[in-house]
């Protein structure tokens, strides 16, 4: 079951009603049953992997909590992280590594005993694995006590709004909320509904419409010229933003209606004026996870190398971010490109700040616009590796962009709907970014403006949304 399916439109309102009618002390149990039902609905066998990760996490965090010997505690943490990572490695990376080994050995005429294995990736595994690792490290660092109730741990890892594509939440935020006895709050429910509505708009109207064009171009790279490929490559980051950003808003809104606060995942990323700012606004839950559990410990241990230690930490962190997205060279290059961009910024940061101060640039609109454009171009150029099916295709796209200009492939209807809706989304982000709280539509005091805004967005979804149950991009990760 996915958020855009018809089943979810029946499932969620029913669950919300039953949830708020259920006595507070049993609500976590209802949510756990609902979460597993939601997950099993996709493919039942995947729930076994989830249950295995849950069992291991619960057991070893309890053991860590009970022991007072540091070395033992560390051993439990390492064993648990290895156990948690095993399914991820097996399902996500084993096939690629095996294929690589086969190809390498075959080139030397040596036969590898294992044949090609194509495994179906349990949906959401990258997300709940990171959540489980984060919880394990938090217990080890004594930032949170180990949860005794295995059901609550199971709910944390399987919570249906988050399990398929995040946000990658932290145990210290979620566990207390699952146990808290909350009352139904009118404002929270309304806010949740507004978030869901805007999330559906982003996904169904913007992402899926742009996706029709991008898929048509990237699906037939040899048939398209550089102009078309460049245009599709410019649209792709917007598609991902609307897709994952939309999904995240629906997830956050869904949780909000159930009285649970979930962290923000996107914050108007295309108005960032530098790559470092961009990564504080894009897929925030993943980057903050990587910052807390990879970058910070790494840069601390590499501090003797000063600035180069930071550069190494950045490169390793974004290399891992690339690998997290998939076991393909394209994602490795994608991650390393982010690392390079951020490292250059880190190395030139002081000089840039001085230059900006000397010429009083920070407040000038054209300087902000220039920063926004450069940041977008850098990110969209890296996204070519994120979108291309393989590294060869990505290089073909780059080659064509620089050498094969021509007429733009125009799928007029798709593009007009897509660009209109994108403009609408960016206009809202622009107003929120530069004129916060000045232009309110969903939050307007006037009930007619508010209702008209809800109705207008709903009508846009019905009139130009792509309602054929398309998948979310991040389900593949």
């Amino acid at each position, binding site marked *: 079951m996915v958020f855009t399916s*018809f089943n979810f439109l029946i499932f969620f309102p029913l669950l919300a009603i039953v949830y708020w009618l259920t006595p507070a002390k049993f609500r976590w149990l209802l949510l756990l049953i609902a979460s597993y039902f939601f997950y099993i609905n996709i493919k039942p066998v995947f729930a076994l992997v989830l249950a295995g990760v849950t069992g291991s996490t619960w057991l070893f965090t309890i053991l860590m909590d009970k022991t007072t010997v540091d070395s033992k505690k560390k051993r439990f943490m390492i064993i648990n992280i290895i156990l948690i990572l095993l399914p991820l490695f097996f399902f996500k990376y084993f096939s690629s590594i095996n294929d690589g080994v086969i190809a390498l050995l075959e080139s030397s005429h040596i036969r590898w005993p294992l044949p090609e294995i194509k495994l179906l990736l349990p949906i959401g595994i990258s997300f709940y694995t990171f959540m489980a690792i984060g919880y394990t490290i938090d217990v080890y660092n004594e930032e949170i006590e180990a949860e005794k109730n295995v059901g609550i741990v199971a709910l944390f890892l399987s919570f249906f709004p988050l399990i398929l594509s995040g946000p990658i939440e932290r145990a210290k935020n979620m566990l207390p909320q699952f146990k808290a006895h909350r009352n139904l709050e009118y404002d929270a*429910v*309304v806010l949740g509904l507004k978030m869901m509505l805007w999330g559906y708009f982003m996904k169904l109207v913007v992402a899926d419409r742009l996706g029709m064009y991008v898929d048509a171009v990237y699906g037939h790279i040899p048939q398209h010229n550089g102009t078309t490929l460049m245009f599709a490559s410019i649209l792709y980051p917007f598609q991902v933003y609307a897709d994952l950003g939309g999904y995240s808003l629906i997830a956050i809104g869904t949780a909000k209606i159930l009285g649970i606060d979930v962290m923000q995942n996107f914050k108007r990323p295309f108005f960032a004026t530098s790559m470092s700012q961009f990564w504080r606004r894009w897929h925030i839950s993943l980057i903050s996870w990587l910052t807390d559990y990879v970058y910070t410990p790494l840069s601390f241990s590499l501090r003797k190398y000063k600035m180069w230690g930071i550069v190494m930490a950045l490169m390793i962190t974004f290399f891992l971010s690339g690998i997290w997205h998939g076991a393909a060279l394209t994602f490795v290059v994608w991650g390393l490109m982010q690392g390079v961009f951020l490292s250059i910024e880190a190395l030139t940061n002081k000089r840039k700040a001085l230059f900006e101060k000397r010429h009083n640039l920070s407040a000038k609109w054209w300087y902000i616009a220039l920063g926004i454009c450069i940041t977008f171009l850098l990110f969209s150029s890296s996204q070519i590796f994120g979108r291309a099916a393989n590294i060869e295709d990505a290089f073909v796209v780059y080659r064509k962009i620089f050498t094969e200009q021509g007429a733009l492939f125009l799928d007029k209807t798709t593009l*007009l709907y897509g660009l209109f809706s994108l403009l609408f989304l960016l206009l809202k982000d622009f107003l929120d970014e530069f004129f916060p709280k000045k232009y309110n539509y969903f939050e307007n005091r006037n009930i007619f403006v508010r209702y008209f805004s809800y*109705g207008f967005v709903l009508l846009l979804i*019905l*009139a130009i949304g*792509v309602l*054929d149950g398309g998948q979310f991009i991040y389900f593949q990760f």
Partner: protein
Amino acid sequence: MIALKNSNKIFITKALAFVVFFFLIDFGSGILFRFLTKMALENNPQGMIAEYTMQEVEADILIIGGSDAHSSFVPDIIEAQMNLSCYNCGLDGHGIFYQCCLINSILQRTTPKFIIWCTDPRFLTGRTKGIPETLYRFYDQDLFVKNMIDKIEPKTRFLLYSNLYCYNSTILNILKNILSKTNSTKGYNSLETEGYLFPSIREPRMPANEVMDVNVRYFEDIIHKCNDKGVKLVMVFPPRYEEFNYKEGTEFKALEKITEEQNILFVHELYLAPEFINDSSMFKDAAHVNDKGARMFTTMFCERIKCLN
């Protein structure tokens, strides 16, 4: 258990008010869209392809199919060669389900002499997408469409309670046809290009696609309906600029078997005809001939079917 506090009562009242407000807007939008569609159909029938071909078209020869039909058959040439009236009912991106509904609707209104059904080897496979949204607008008007949607996509009927949803993605087309009028080409979509830049796509064998029972059932049903009304059905593959041995595919064999059993003329030899496959100047892209290719193909096709007239 929660007691209904004042704030909850307000919430429920507002939610109900919003639902009513939304249904009113949806209902009003539906009426507006119906009116605009009618206006567009009156102003530029050829632009409102689905409405015109489902509800109004009449000719001795009707061409049915997707984008390949739309841009491969020139009705003027067929009319000149066959001495019969012709209309091209091709609609881009629409597969077997839409085409079955279209033929059924045509047969309920009129009896053409020929129906030329233009398709490709993947006609009976799952590659064909599900029910196209275009058909949603005919859900309440056409029992065949209704039964098909209810059978293949049972949940869609709930979405179709929305008056606006059935007009999804149509607003631009409607406005375009209200504001402008195109010269009639009898449904033919002329692709004016100098030729196709790229080498033909060569694959040893087309990717295997499973033949879908539901596609076969609807196809056979339409064949029977054509036979009952004495309409001659001709299946045809228009030229492609991609080489593969389509005759080995199970999809093709299934289609060939049905046409043989039902005694239907099946013209597929022009699909990879040397006149086309060796001449990129005939194509707009790998799957569509340009105007030059269409004229040549239509002429060759007429020669092939003259014996039926």
